[in-house]
């Protein structure tokens, strides 16, 4: 098929590139219906980015929803086969609200999920694909990786429970040392431990700088070792720059555990990719095994390319009622054959923008005055 890539929107080009990337690593496309039973979302509302869901009653009386998320549907259909990992990718529209926009929006999301006997190789592969996805989106990107086990272990050790833990996680997510310090004082955490926690929230840099710091702060050794192994895999996989360990990257610990990550590209103000390990969601949904995955938010990429005032067509071909349709068709065919785009019209459209305007004449086409 002869495909003119210039006609594709940025998000369409990226979607094709990402799908081709995931297929090369053995991921199979997952297709789903636009609708899901609302019940699926009610029981896992906090897992959703936005808890607003568009619902309707189906003809059989069941309450349905336009899907606000893909992962829950994939997990619901997952089957555990010992020793194997189900590797799926998707390119789907989801429907949700965002804090910045009023009302619901249709958002195109491309991502992948790995479910089953997920081991460090599988997690490393997902991280590598996340880094490579960012590279396909933009030449300048950053993948920020964290480990919820490491953050959770430090909060446990300092005695943060219940509401205080929720507030501490919020402060860590905001890199907010002043309020984290105040919270530590309220909860009787000693100065040295409070400084350790504040330092953890502030850490942000290349793995080679951050990993020794994590050791110095006395962070949970298993988690530090896992981060070391995973980041070494990424380095060996060609991720030489834009890899950042940042312990402020968090997720809801009722669903997520282990690694969590977020991706940024230069020129987009919010994260365009987010993901992590979500074994706890599987447990909550009565599924065996472990899981890791990520999603890329293609709606955010619209503004990555410069908006140029292009043309509606290279050529506007004007004809009138005296011209036989066959002559108009032949003239259009000839111009298209030259590699030009053509719009044939009887009058100049008021807001149309064209490279040039020609008129059908006895001899062929003439420049229009």
């Amino acid at each position: 098929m002869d495909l003119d890539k210039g006609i594709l929107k940025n998000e369409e080009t990226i979607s094709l590139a990402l799908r081709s990337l995931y297929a090369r690593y053995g991921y199979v496309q997952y297709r789903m219906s636009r609708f899901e039973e609302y019940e699926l979302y009610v029981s896992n509302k906090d897992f959703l980015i936005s808890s607003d869901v568009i619902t309707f009653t189906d003809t059989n009386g069941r309450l349905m929803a336009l899907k606000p998320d893909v992962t829950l549907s994939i997990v619901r259909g997952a089957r555990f086969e010992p020793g194997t990992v189900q590797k799926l990718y998707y390119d789907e529209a989801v429907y949700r609200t965002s804090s910045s926009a009023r009302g619901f929006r249709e958002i195109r999301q491309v991502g992948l999920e790995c479910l089953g006997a997920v081991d460090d190789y599988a997690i490393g592969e997902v991280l590598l694909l996340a880094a490579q996805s960012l590279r396909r989106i933009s030449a300048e990107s950053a993948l920020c990786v964290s480990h919820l086990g490491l953050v959770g272990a430090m909060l446990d050790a300092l005695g943060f429970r219940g509401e205080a833990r929720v507030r501490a996680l919020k402060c860590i997510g905001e890199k907010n040392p002043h309020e984290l310090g105040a919270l530590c004082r309220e909860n009787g955490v000693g100065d040295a431990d409070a400084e350790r926690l504040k330092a953890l929230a502030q850490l942000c840099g290349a793995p080679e700088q951050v990993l020794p710091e994590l050791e110095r702060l006395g962070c949970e050794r298993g988690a530090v070792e896992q981060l070391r192994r995973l980041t070494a895999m990424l380095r060996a996989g060609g991720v030489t720059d834009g890899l950042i360990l940042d312990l402020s990257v968090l997720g809801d610990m009722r669903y997520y555990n282990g690694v969590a990550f977020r991706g940024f590209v230069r020129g987009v103000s919010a994260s365009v990719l987010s993901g992590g390990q979500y074994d706890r969601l599987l447990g909550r949904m009565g599924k065996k095994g472990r899981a890791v995955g990520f999603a890329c938010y293609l709606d955010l990429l619209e503004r990555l390319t410069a908006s140029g005032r292009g043309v509606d067509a290279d050529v506007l071909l004007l004809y009138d009622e005296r011209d036989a349709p066959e002559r108009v068709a032949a003239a259009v065919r000839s111009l298209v054959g030259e590699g030009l785009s053509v719009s044939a019209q009887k009058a100049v459209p008021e807001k149309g923008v064209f490279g040039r305007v020609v008129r059908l004449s006895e001899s062929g086409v003439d420049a229009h005055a």
Partner: protein
Amino acid sequence: MLNIALPKGRLGEKVYGLFERAGFDCPAIREENRKLFFENEALGLRYFWVKPSDVAIYVERGAADIGVAGKDILLEYAPEVYELLDLGVGKCRMCVAGPKDFYDDMRRTLRVATKFSHIATEYYASLGRDIDVIPLNGSIELAPILGLSDVIVDIVETGATLRENDLAVLETIVPISARLIANKASYAFQNERIEAVVQGLAQEVQK
């Protein structure tokens, strides 16, 4: 170039003084003119003044890499930004205020007039108190005087306006001050520059 959004007005000028003393100066900003933004090319800094309540939006949307916003704005709009430093200026309190002799009749829905609907809703939800939020944009103190509301939730600096209108602070919800905030993507791409600003300002704040 590091883009910095500062809040227009007295607070912004005070905050710029902190940046200046920390070595992130931009002499053009002191000139009398109607320019909207000011650059120090040598230091790679670009400052601009925006309405205080808009700073968080400029930073969240990446038009500014960093900025200075009041904690009241951060609590009300909950923007997706990092809150890197308490600058210790613009100190005041978010309070519940009302008539000095106010009695909260728990059998009735409490009518709360405020510019800060989200903060008021969250605060009373944490107490399990049912409220009717009356959103206003100014002269909030008038609401309980005219019977439009039972109480108000608003920023209190000295309390003089309240006293002059026979009102009093009934509860302090949260202390407020100016905070240095950063866009999350900018923090990933300009980490060293932003951290240098944080360190410089932190030293000034401690003086």
